[in-house]
C-alpha cells in the first residue's frame, strides 16, 4: 500500500509538472502580438454650413495574448488633435477560418475637443451606452482580404458594418 501511494504521488507530481510546462508553453506561444493601423479620411456632410467638414482618423488595434487595445485618434485638417478614444478589453474568441477577432471592451478613456467629428461623437455615445448598460462594448474584426507579403488587410468591423483598409504592423 505504501509503495502504491508513493508511486501515485510521484505520478501526480510529475503530471503536475508536465501540465505546468504545457500551460507555460501554450501561454507564451499565444503571446504573439497582432497590430493593425488604419488611416481614414472623415467627411461630415453638413447641410447647415453648406460645406463639408474634414477630419482624419487613425485607428490602432493591438492584441497581445488575450488582451486587446483599440485607439481612435482624430485630427483636424491642420494636424491638431480633434479628440481621442482609447479602449481596453480582451480577445474573447479568434475564429481562424474566417480570420475574425472578437473583442470585448470593458474600459475606455476619452479626450474630447470642441471640434469633435461626428464619427467620434457617435462612437463615444454607443460605447458608453454599451459599457454602462452591459458592462462591455463588443466588436468583431474580420479580415476580409489579407496580403501578408504587403502587410495589408481589409477589415470588416461589426456590428457597425464598417470596412477599412489597414496596414499590418510588425
Amino acid at each position: 500500500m505504501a509503495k502504491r501511494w508513493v508511486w501515485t504521488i510521484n505520478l501526480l507530481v510529475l503530471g503536475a509538472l508536465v501540465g505546468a510546462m504545457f500551460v507555460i508553453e501554450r501561454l507564451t506561444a499565444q503571446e504573439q502580438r497582432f497590430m493593425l493601423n488604419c488611416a481614414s479620411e472623415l467627411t461630415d456632410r453638413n447641410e447647415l454650413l453648406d460645406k463639408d467638414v474634414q477630419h482624419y482618423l487613425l485607428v490602432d488595434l493591438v492584441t497581445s495574448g488575450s488582451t486587446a487595445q483599440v485607439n481612435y485618434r482624430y485630427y483636424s485638417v491642420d494636424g491638431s488633435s480633434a479628440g481621442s478614444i482609447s479602449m481596453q478589453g480582451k480577445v474573447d474568441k479568434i475564429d481562424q477560418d474566417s480570420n475574425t477577432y472578437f473583442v470585448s471592451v470593458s474600459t475606455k478613456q476619452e479626450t474630447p475637443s470642441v471640434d469633435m467629428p461626428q464619427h467620434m461623437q457617435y462612437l463615444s455615445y454607443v460605447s458608453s451606452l454599451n459599457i454602462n448598460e452591459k458592462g462591455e462594448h463588443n466588436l468583431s474584426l474580420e479580415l476580409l482580404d489579407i496580403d501578408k507579403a504587403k502587410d495589408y488587410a481589409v477589415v470588416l468591423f461589426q456590428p457597425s458594418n464598417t470596412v477599412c483598409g489597414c496596414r499590418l504592423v510588425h
Partner: protein
Amino acid sequence: MQLGDCLVDLAKGEMTNVLTGKSWHLPRAELQVLRLLVENQGKVVLKQQLKAGNAEYAALSDSSVARAVFMLRSFIGPQYEYLIETVKGKGYLLQDVVIDLADSKSVESLSSVGEKLDPAIASLGSVEERRQQAISQSQKSDFTEIDVMPCATGKKRPSIPLITLAASALFLLLFTALFLSLPEQSKEVTKTKPMRSDVVKLKSGQFMSIHLYAASNTNNRLLLQQSQEIQQAFALCEQSDWRHVYIALSHDNQVLNMTLRGDSVGQSVVRNLKITDSRSAKNKQFVSVRWLLDAEICD
C-alpha cells in the same frame, strides 16, 4: 515498538520499515546494540556495555559496534538517523522517543507529544483505545500490512491524502488558468461574403471590382444607390491605381465607408473614406458623381 518509520520486534530480532515494507532480520551485533539502546533509551550507553559478550556470544569489537550503529541508522533512514546519537568518547544514546506500542504508559505519553503523533492514533478516543489500536497494529506478524504508521520523531509529515489533494488541485488550477486566459478558438463562424460584387470598366479599358458589404440582405436601397454613384464616377476615370473598391453602409445608415485598394510602383496602396451624413433618410446623399470626382478618386 516503533523507531521512526520502523517497527522493531526485539523478540524476533526483526525490524520492518513500514513505508517500504522492507524487513531486516537483525544480525547479532545490531540486535545486541539496539536492545541495549532501547533498554536504556534517553541515557548514554557506554561502548563497553554495547560490545560486552555473554556466556553465549563473545564480546564485539569496537568496529563491530560502530558498524552495527551505522547499519541501524542506515535502515531507519536519514530522516531518523539522529535518533541514535553518538556521544563522543563515551558511547551512544537512543533518543527517548521510541514508542513501546505494547506499553500503556508509552502510548499514553503519546498524547503529551501532541503534533508529533500521527493523526490516526492521536484522533483515537481514550488511552485504552489508543493502546488497543497500537497493540493490534504491532501484533500484525509481518508488519507489512500496516497501512499508515505513526511517526514519533517530532517531524510532522504531510499526510498522503493531503499531498494527493494538493497535486490534484494544482492540476485543476493549471488547466483552469489555461482555458480562462486563452481566447476561445472557434470554427463556427463563416467568412463574410460581399452582398454584391460588380465590375466597372474605366475609359482606358481597365477593370475595377466593386464589393458591397451589408449586415443584412434587407433595406439596402441606400447602399445600392450609393454604389451606382460610385460606379458612374469611376467609369469617368481615364485610368486609376485602384483595383478593388469595398463599400459598406454602417448599420445605422449614418456613415458610408469606402475603401480603395490598389498597387502603385510595386507598393500596395490603400485609401479609406468615411462620409457621415446625419440628414434625414430621404435627404441623405453621402456621395455624388461630382463629389467623388472632386475627392479625386481616380488618382
